[in-house]
């Protein structure tokens, strides 16, 4: 109640002499920083015990915890002092890089920074509890800086995590569409897992490129491990088969699940041009037959 009234009052006064308040804040920050430096050990211990209470950062040993909390604390105070978050940003990124592989979650990182904010705010309350006006001004100086710090740390952590995720996505993508030459002029593409649009696109690029480099005549695409596909992907697959035919390679698709068979029939793609065989074994046998046949009559198959 008092706070809001005070707030309203101050907001009124802020419009009139804004400089005086800024000056006020500038004078207050060094005092604040000095206070936080002075009680560094005590406050840090309070913070660590709060973290323990909330059972955050359990992946860390107590040694690590003490080292990290010290650096976070010092960085925190430094940001309050200089107002520049650049160093903190760098530190937060490094920290994230170290702790993300150990399974530290976003809520934990945000949680500990907010705890530190609260611990420090409490100590300010304690120090200035006699003088409400002073306390309000100190909090005015402290809160925006503290919020900015919490924001910076959270954003850095999320950024770092996204970077890791992107990296993993890239490597998964590379691994997801292997094109294997089994015999002279025969390629197989085993596909395992859900075929989304991006992966289907990747598959086309890889397959058409491989047909060229391996001079493939027959390609067996095995989709036994694909649980399902939507219409777009199914159409894409049919287009890939057509494009392969234009490059002079016949495609045999094996291992269509009942679901996928139903999808293909429901969307009404032209199935006459698609050679499908029940399982990979049958597909390879057919491919070998075609290749053996091909010495006498190459490319005999695509006649519609």
């Amino acid at each position, binding site marked *: 109640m008092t706070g809001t009234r005070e707030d309203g009052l101050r907001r009124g006064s802020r419009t009139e002499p804004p400089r005086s308040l800024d000056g006020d804040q500038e004078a207050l920050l060094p005092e604040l920083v000095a206070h936080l430096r002075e009680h560094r050990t005590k406050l840090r211990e309070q913070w660590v015990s709060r973290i323990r209470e909330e059972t955050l950062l359990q992946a860390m040993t107590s040694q690590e915890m003490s080292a990290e909390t010290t650096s976070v604390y010092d960085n925190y105070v430094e940001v309050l002092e200089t107002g520049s978050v650049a160093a903190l940003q760098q530190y937060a990124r490094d920290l994230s890089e170290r702790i993300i592989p150990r399974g530290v979650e976003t809520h934990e990182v945000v949680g500990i920074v907010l705890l530190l904010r609260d611990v420090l705010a409490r100590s300010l309350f304690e120090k200035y509890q006699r003088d409400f006006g002073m306390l309000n001004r100190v909090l005015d100086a402290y809160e925006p800086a503290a919020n900015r710090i919490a924001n910076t740390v959270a954003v850095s952590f999320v950024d770092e995590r996204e970077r890791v995720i992107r990296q993993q996505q890239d490597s998964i993508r590379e691994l997801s569409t292997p094109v294997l030459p089994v015999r002279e002029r025969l390629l197989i593409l085993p596909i395992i897992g859900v075929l989304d649009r991006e992966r289907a696109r990747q598959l*086309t*690029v890889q397959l*058409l*490129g491989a*047909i*060229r480099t391996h*001079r493939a*005549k027959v390609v067996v695409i095995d989709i036994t491990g694909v649980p399902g596909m939507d219409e777009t992907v199914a159409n894409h697959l049919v*287009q*890939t088969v*057509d*494009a*392969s*035919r*234009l*490059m*002079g*390679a016949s495609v045999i698709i094996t291992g269509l699940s009942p679901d996928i068979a139903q999808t293909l029939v429901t969307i009404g793609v032209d199935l006459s041009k698609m050679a499908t065989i029940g399982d990979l074994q049958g597909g390879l046998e057919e491919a070998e037959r075609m290749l053996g046949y091909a010495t*006498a*009559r*190459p*490319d*005999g198959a*695509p*006649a*519609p």
Partner: protein
Amino acid sequence: MTTGATTSGATTSGPRLFSILRQGSILIASIHTALDDSQLERFREDLVDRIGRDRAKGVIIDVAALDVVDSFATRTLRGIADMARLRGARTVVVGIQPDVAFVIVQLGMDTGSLVTALDLEEGLTHLAATAGASIGPAR
């Protein structure tokens, strides 16, 4: 020179856009650069004319130099294949680039009965095999 008598003055001034070479009973037509619609038409006329004059049994059209094939080009190639068949020759289109192949399919351009092969060598193998197989019933 190889583009024959029907080549007009317009094409002789610049670098050769396409060439048509004879190898036994097979004509090998290579497109060297992207052709516009009128150049494609001239290509078709020259090629179909040469099929009759050289009494060709097979035609190979090499499009490896093209990185864009539009619907007109697709239609022209299909037209050449049909006309060649009427004049007694089989056509194989070779050297379609991976990107081009996918674009042709994606844009739903109808390749119809167009026979394709990976490259010149494959095309020649195909022609040798099919010519051998088809001579029996044909005559």
